[in-house]
């Protein structure tokens, strides 16, 4: 799958732009603040119906304007498909595929997969467990829409149960039958979500290991370990036993919303001791494993977006990535760089078709 044409109107710092892409390699060059990352985000928006950088959609509308519109032609299994994403300030977004608006936006997720490697990504091991759950939930939701729907139901039920606990705490009275009405629905969802997380991690981890070994300079043993109280045999009992604790804390203390995935290298937690280089290798391996999982589960090659990787990575790891591009491991690739001579240096030996775009203050010109 690849994106053929992209038209932007009032998207971030673009007033209007028309781009035609190569199915292979596309490079965006331009100074800091020119709008390179914004173009990657436009593609991200079309894939996932939301920005990679912030959850407030109206931030994507160009300053002083009232709407934005993204229109793209994708090619998938030799068929041309148009995607259109319109947002008017103060209104709900409209997302169309071949001119037909989706009834449920979630129906779009996973149909046009992209993988983005971007600088801020280190949150996934620097921050708490929530970032890691978000990271893996985003991946699994794209390969299994059922997983996404279960997650949405779970979060909704959890919000209701927590609101209920709060009201019980305030009034000093607990309606056990009502609480049980939520438990009865949360318990099977817990089991099912944890089961799916385990299943997809089992598919994901081998890809991760393979990429880590290929990218790391030294021989070391990384590991990813799913941690969940839900998979224990006593989960249901424990969940009900925690009622009094839940009432005191006014929130649900057990469940998949507390899960984590532990990142380690040679048995040591990544965030405490790993070197910068190890963290970089870890990050790329996580992303490339996502790429491979998407390709096998969705049976379509995702688009790869690489934002400022030359800044973040050393020559050795960049070399590895370029080698993979050269070998045709990826389909369509988008790369940004603020320093043209550096990109030229890395890509001059490459025997593949590419298109280079120079960007200046929201204006695009093909080189």
């Amino acid at each position, binding site marked *: 799958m690849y994106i053929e044409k992209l038209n932007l109107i009032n998207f971030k710092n673009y007033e209007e732009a028309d781009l035609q892409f190569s199915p292979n390699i596309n490079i965006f060059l331009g100074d800091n603040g020119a709008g390179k990352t914004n173009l990657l985000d436009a593609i991200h928006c079309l894939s996932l119906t939301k920005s990679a950088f912030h959850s407030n959609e109206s931030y994507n509308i160009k300053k002083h304007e009232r709407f934005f519109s993204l229109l793209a032609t994708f090619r998938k299994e030799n068929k041309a498909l148009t995607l259109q994403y319109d947002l008017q300030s103060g209104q709900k977004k409209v997302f169309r595929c071949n001119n037909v608006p989706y009834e449920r936006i979630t129906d779009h997720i996973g149909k046009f997969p992209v993988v983005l490697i971007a600088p801020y990504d280190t949150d996934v091991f620097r921050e708490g467990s929530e970032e890691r759950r978000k990271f893996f939930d985003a991946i699994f939701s794209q390969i299994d829409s059922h997983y996404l729907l279960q997650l949405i139901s779970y979060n909704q039920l959890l*919000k*209701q149960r927590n*609101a209920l606990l709060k009201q019980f705490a305030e009034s000093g009275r607990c309606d056990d*039958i*009502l609480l049980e*009405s939520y438990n009865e*629905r949360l318990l099977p969802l817990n089991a099912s979500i944890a089961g799916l997380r385990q299943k997809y991690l089992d598919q994901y981890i081998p890809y991760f290991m393979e990429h880590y070994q290929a990218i790391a300079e030294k021989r070391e043993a990384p590991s990813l370990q799913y941690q969940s109280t839900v998979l224990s045999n006593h989960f249901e009992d424990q969940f009900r036993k925690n009622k009094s604790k839940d009432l005191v804390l006014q929130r649900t203390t057990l469940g998949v919303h507390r899960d984590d995935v532990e990142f380690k290298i040679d048995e040591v937690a990544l965030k405490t001791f790993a070197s910068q280089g190890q963290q970089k290798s870890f990050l790329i391996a996580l992303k490339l494993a996502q790429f491979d999982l998407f390709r096998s589960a969705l049976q379509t090659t995702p688009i790869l977006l690489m934002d400022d990787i030359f800044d973040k990575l050393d020559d050795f790891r960049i070399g590895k990535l370029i080698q993979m591009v050269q070998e045709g491991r990826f389909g369509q690739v988008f790369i940004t760089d603020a320093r043209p001579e550096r990109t030229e240096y890395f890509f001059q030996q490459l025997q593949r078709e590419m298109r280079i775009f120079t960007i200046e203050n929201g204006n695009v010109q093909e080189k």
Partner: protein
Amino acid sequence: MQFSSRLIEEAVGEVSKLPGIGKKTALRLVLHLLKESPDKTLRLSDALTNLRTNIRYCSCCHNISDTELCDICSSPRRDKQVICVVEDTRDVMAIENTHQYHGLYHVLGGVISPIERISPADLTIDSLLERIRNEQISEVILALSPTMEGDTTAFYLTRKMKEFPIKITTIARGIPMGGELEYTDELTLGRSIQARIQYES
């Protein structure tokens, strides 16, 4: 929006509080009324005032009614052993339109949702239990929206009714997920009421 008259501004302000109506539409409606003959507007405002001051709810099923006991509850032709539990008046209308159901109703007035501070006490649940206790009821049909809140409410009600020797059923789900009863077409709804199934949690 800048108005040339405070009277218009006031009217637009009130009309635009209605669901699904923005300031622009409200202004169009208000100007439309002004163009029509004065008694049309007065009839509308009379109808609304009347509705507001004289509206009553059936003392038995809580459906909107002009009388103490609604037409359905007082009809000798209805099967008084079966109660169909719904969220609001629109659901009663939708089910009545199918002509497939001849029992009574019970209008809950919503579904349980702690986030919106709607608790069982805000609904007519106690009155439903009272009816089951005091009348000869053989079956209760749960016809709530297949949303998360509707399902939780159905579960809660089943638990509360467990002590009574009645059959609890739910309408068969031809109804799309997340859809509301009101929007389901009559044929599907009629069929799902006939093909109701034993409630399982």
